[in-house]
């Protein structure tokens, strides 16, 4: 049995590595995708293109707009003179945010009544708008505090220092610079593994079926278990190879810290790969042609990426969909990846995820092996 399995493995590996194009497919796309994802997948908001319409044009109003100019969150691109220009600039998408200060602003601030800063924001991208408004509030609040303190200091110079205030001390753990790259780069590894392993496994069997070599193999004395092993073990190895490749690349090139244990990461990756082999094998049992295999694997991969929490938090999804995510192996792998990379947590925290992937992997493999035997008869 071992001899036959070895031959089968050698045949598969030769088939994969002999073809220049397939060889490229194993190394090229993962690296390219890692680079593109690493650079493009970014939700940090800096340099929001901003325009200023200052009808007041006093020292006080200029002080406020200068604070916006000094902040790295805003990029003051234009100074407008008339209200009509606001609509133009916004419609053309030249700026995403307009600060409008009406005349009388300095007067109101000076005499202690509330002055109004009008902010017009292009919210067609709601996230940018939301984060941008948060920054506007922060800049304005610090401006207001300074002016109010100055005013109070004049009216009650001795006790103003004793005015109580609550200061929020932020402690962003695990990702002190709030860099979304640190969030996305580990996540990308999971997506890449899924795409590569599911596709390769699904195609490997279906291609033999489509070009008729499957029957040739079936007349050899090879057993089903050996055939299935032969069709999955190479892709498991390729998956491990690619995982190592993108992990090394991600940590060295994008400088994302790998704080946790590599062994925990390896265990999680191995369990996840088992799940993906199961999915790939399953797809091959329900597909007659490569086109069908491709369509079916896309039907799986696309929702699996979205409902893994890769791009947006699972907690923000509708509750029914949140339940469904528990069936998605990728959900658990994303947690493992991000925890091991950024939090450095070990199995004491991650055991539920590992157990879930092991269970799902066993189930998927069992079902697809059973179906596989039927589909060969």
């Amino acid at each position: 049995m071992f001899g036959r399995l070895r031959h089968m493995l050698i045949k598969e590996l030769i088939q994969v590595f002999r073809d220049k194009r397939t060889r490229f497919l194993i190394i090229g796309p993962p690296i390219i995708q890692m680079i593109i994802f690493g650079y493009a997948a970014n939700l940090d908001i800096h340099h929001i293109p901003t325009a200023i319409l200052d009808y007041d044009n006093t020292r006080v109003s200029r002080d406020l707009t200068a604070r916006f100019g000094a902040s790295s969150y805003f990029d003051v691109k234009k100074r407008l003179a008339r209200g009509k220009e606001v609509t133009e600039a916004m419609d053309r998408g030249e700026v995403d945010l307009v600060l409008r200060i009406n005349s009388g602003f300095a007067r109101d601030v000076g005499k202690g009544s509330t002055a109004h800063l009008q902010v017009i924001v292009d919210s067609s991208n709601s996230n940018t708008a939301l984060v941008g408004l948060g920054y506007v509030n922060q800049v304005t609040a610090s401006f207001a505090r300074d002016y109010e303190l100055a005013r109070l200091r004049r009216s009650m110079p001795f006790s103003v220092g004793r005015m109580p205030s609550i200061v929020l001390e932020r402690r962003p753990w695990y990702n002190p610079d709030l860099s979304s790259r640190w969030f996305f780069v580990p996540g990308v590894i999971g997506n890449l593994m899924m795409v590569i392993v599911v596709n390769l496994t699904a195609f490997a069997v279906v291609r033999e079926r489509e070009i008729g070599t499957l029957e040739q193999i079936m007349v050899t004395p090879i057993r089903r278990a050996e055939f299935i092993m032969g069709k999955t073990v190479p892709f498991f190895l390729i998956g491990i190879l690619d995982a190592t490749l993108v992990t090394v690349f991600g940590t060295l090139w994008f400088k994302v810290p790998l704080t946790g244990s590599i062994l925990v990461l390896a265990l999680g990756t191995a369990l996840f790969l088992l799940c993906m082999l199961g999915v790939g094998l399953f797809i091959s049992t329900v597909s007659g042609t490569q086109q069908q295999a491709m369509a079916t694997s896309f039907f799986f991969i696309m929702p699996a990426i979205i409902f893994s929490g890769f791009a947006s938090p699972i907690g923000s999804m509708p509750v029914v969909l949140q339940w469904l995510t528990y069936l998605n192996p990728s959900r658990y792998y994303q947690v493992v990846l991000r925890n091991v990379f950024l939090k450095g947590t070990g199995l004491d925290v991650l055991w539920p995820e590992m157990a879930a992937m092991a269970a799902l992997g066993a189930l998927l493999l069992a079902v697809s092996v059973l179906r596989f035997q039927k589909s060969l008869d």
Partner: protein
Amino acid sequence: MKWHRLQAMARKEMLQIIRDPRSVAIVVIMPLLMMLAYGYGISLDAKRLPVYVLDREGSQQSQDFLKRFQASQYFQVVRSVDNYPELVRALDAQSCQLGIVIPRDFSRSISRGGPVGVQALIDATDANSANLAVNYSEAVAQSYSREIQLEWLRRRGGGRPTQPVSVDARTWFNENLESMDNIVPGVVVVVMAVIGTFLTALTIAREWERGTMEQLISTPVTPLEVMLGKLAPYFVIGLADTVFCTLLGIWWFGVPFRGNWPVFLLSAALFLLVVLSTGYFISVIAKSQLAASQVALLATFLPAFLLSGFIFPIEQMPAFIQVVTHIFPARYFMKIVRNVFLKGSSVGVLSYDLAALALFAAVLALLATRAFKKQL
């Protein structure tokens, strides 16, 4: 070019699609599935973030302060813990995103005067949610701070309490700041890119691999007829899917459609031409279906998803990636679709993007016609 040969070619391709149940599924179910998955699955609005609190004082005032977090729609105070390690464990196991630690002398410091520090421990793994959490908790702290200051000033009978500046926000084009209104029009673009390329990418490669290409070559059909005949059915299907997705976006997801249909359909037709030509080109070059599918994924789905501004804003990318986005047509179409949906933009504003799309369509269609040679 003969009309009847073209017709025959298109008919053959159409029959091939209709007789393969899975192709029908791609055409009908995939757009629906993608619309629903993306529409519901991608939400960047952080609401009801789970919060743990550690109240070291346990006074009336500290509880009062913590109630503000509970009252905010952005937070959900899940638990109150007794000690710091418990809070650390909760953050490690992502049971909470935010931990608020009230110091032992909270109310005493307030009555004594001066600043009081309240710790906000944030699980910043997901930087975007963390950022929103910081902003929201900052707002809660500020408003409470404001209240105790007013109280303090009143008791002293000193200066009149004021709020020197207030921010009046006007959100244009998406008044309620729904991320769904931003995502759903974008899904239309991604669906078109996927359907268009995936379906066509295999069409020629399949003929090569199955050996039917030799039969096709032996017929008098010309390369141009092969291309047009193969692409025409997909063009019709693609356009139907676009309209279907758009109507789904408007009626089911309630996304406003403020622009006009002719501009939208024109740009959709141009974009379809782009993706179909790309798919066909890949198909001719790649020869094997596996390679064709992988290249198609890299060349269209990925840029449409990543480099078009669909989820990740282009302006926030590094400069050289921003340059790269210009060579992917999805970027222009994404802008047109969003503008047509939310801003109701006129042709004038969109002329640059429409022109770019037309240019891409012309070049890629030309490339596709040149690529296929009738030889073995």
